């Protein structure tokens, strides 16, 4: 008796789930647009590749020549607790300092509501890092431009570079090309068959007392700053002299712990539609 009741209950549940699963998009949209504008800075100065000179807490001056990072798995944090998770397939963005368009992340189909923060993964999660090649398009396409300063993929140790900062510094030793370069290529998603270090960081950025409202009339743009100085001046002080090149070494984890704290909320604007 109890068993048949259970089946009746499960059947009802299944039918309800079926109905919900094939719900067609409502023509009366209840979703809008949310924009994340990233601004790369060095302390209180705007970041200028190749021309700007900055100084870390150890007093080492440096000029960045490349700064790229992946932002993925974005979640918008609602004031009422029902977070909105951006569909995974549309949640990978490669931000490059040389490409202003890449610094503006436009999220569509965001449910109307009040948002008090955002969280994202800096890097490419392990699941996607081991997915079939057909599921890695756009910024994730290993066949897209991943050579030179743009390179964000390791072909010989299959995986993405989560954050790349390259530059010159009098504190760096002279390399084979005769320049004083430093290079930080931070990756490692935890390994596919063999466990390796995991430098993936989920980074929440809250908007303080601000609330970003998405509705039929309002498109909020939140401004997040990424401060390259924090890559040096975090829980571990990064010395260019001591570590001019960090790619595949356990020390990469210290840099990842530093850059996990490089983002800060700096305000919002709201565009009004109609």
């Amino acid at each position: 008796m109890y068993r048949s009741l259970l089946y009746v209950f499960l059947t009802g549940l299944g039918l309800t789930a079926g109905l919900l699963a094939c719900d067609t998009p409502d023509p009366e949209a209840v979703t809008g647009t949310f924009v994340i504008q990233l601004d790369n800075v060095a302390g209180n100065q705007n970041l200028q590749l190749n021309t700007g000179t900055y100084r870390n807490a150890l007093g080492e001056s440096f000029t960045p020549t490349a700064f790229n990072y992946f932002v993925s798995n974005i979640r918008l944090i609602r004031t009422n607790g029902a977070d909105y998770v951006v569909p995974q397939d549309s949640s990978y963005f490669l931000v490059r300092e040389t490409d202003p368009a890449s610094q503006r992340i436009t999220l569509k189909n965001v449910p109307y509501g009040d948002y008090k923060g955002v969280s994202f993964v800096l890097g490419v999660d392990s699941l996607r890092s081991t997915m079939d090649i057909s599921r890695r398009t756009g910024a994730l396409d290993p066949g897209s431009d991943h050579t030179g300063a743009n390179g964000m993929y390791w072909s010989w140790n299959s995986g993405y570079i989560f954050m790349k900062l390259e530059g010159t510094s009098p504190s760096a030793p002279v390399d084979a090309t005769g320049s004083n370069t430093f290079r930080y290529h931070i990756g490692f998603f935890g390994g596919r068959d063999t466990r390796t270090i995991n430098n993936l960081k989920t980074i929440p950025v809250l908007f303080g007392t601000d609330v970003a409202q998405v509705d039929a009339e309002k498109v909020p743009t939140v401004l997040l700053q990424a401060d390259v100085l924090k890559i040096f001046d975090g829980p571990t002080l990064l010395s260019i002299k001591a570590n001019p090149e960090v790619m595949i070494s356990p020390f990469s984890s210290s840099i990842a712990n530093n850059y996990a704290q490089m983002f800060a909320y700096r305000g919002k604007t709201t565009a009004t539609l109609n």
Partner: protein
Amino acid sequence: MQRWQIFGVWISIVLFGAVVSCQPGGSDPTTDPEPTGPKPIEYQTTPYPWKKPANFPEPTYAFAKNPLTLEGVALGRALFYDDMLSVNGTVSCAFCHQQGAAFAHTDHALSHGINDKIGTRNNLGLQNMAFYKAFFWDGGVQDLDLLPIAPIENPVEMGHSMPALLNAVRQSPRYRPMFLAAFGTDSITTDRFLKALSQFMLTMVSANSRYDKYVRNEAGGRLSTDELAGLTLFKQKCSTCHAGELFTDQSYRNNGLSRATNKDEGRSLITLRPEDRFTFRVPSLRNVERTSPYMHDGRFWTLEEVMNHYSTNMQDVPELDPALRINGRPGVPLTDTEKKQLVAFLRTLTDTDYIADRRLSAPN
């Protein structure tokens, strides 16, 4: 009714409900729209009859994500033999992976790329890749589909960039029809380019050596007394690492090579794990007679040198694999007769069908 029958009926009801609830309202789903105009030419591929050799383990490659077709294999073969895969049009995959050497590069200790650039490791022969879970001496690539990017973009191998190469392939009149035939579209993407190469590489199955015929009790499978003695010795002394029908357990180990001139740290460059320092993939020994030189840096030119390394020249390094330290001493003791018998056995792993297979040769 049995319990499972009740469950089955319940599943049917739920599935039926789900299907019914998803019908678009109003329209009759059984009526197809009338075809208008001439029917487009249908894209039709022919499945490639890939077969697992009877004595082999199950393949690791997920064929379902890339079903082999004659058209896809033909495209991959054309790409494999095309010099345009290197930046200056001088080096194809086959430049370093030569069929006569079981797709290794004999007479080169270290890989040889564009402009006579020399790499850091001895190239591995290509064979039976459908059965491997990782590639290269350090296992840095674990998906066959991702493998070709490494040599294509390595500055001392093919020196190209994937976007530039894909653009060149797109502009080549040769390839558009081949992609169309293989994939039903002439849109040339990273995915299709790499999967075509995988398709061809998956057909590189070497399983027809005299040894294979012996274990499968097939005609031509006779082994001499020395070869049989070598097989017995091999099972006693070598098969812990060179295990199974692939002749590798696919692990990474240190075999006590001197590091006087080469300090390559191998697998730990991939995993960053201290326990992986100075370890390298256990290579398959199939076709080993043809794939000279040997070791990750090609330091030995003959199988006899390899025997001498294992029997007497092994270094007692801290990383030495425990299987190679016998009674507290490094090395696998072998008499001269045993060495000869082992080498005789290893030569039975040569697959002349594979080396001569026209389907794997350069296309006309």
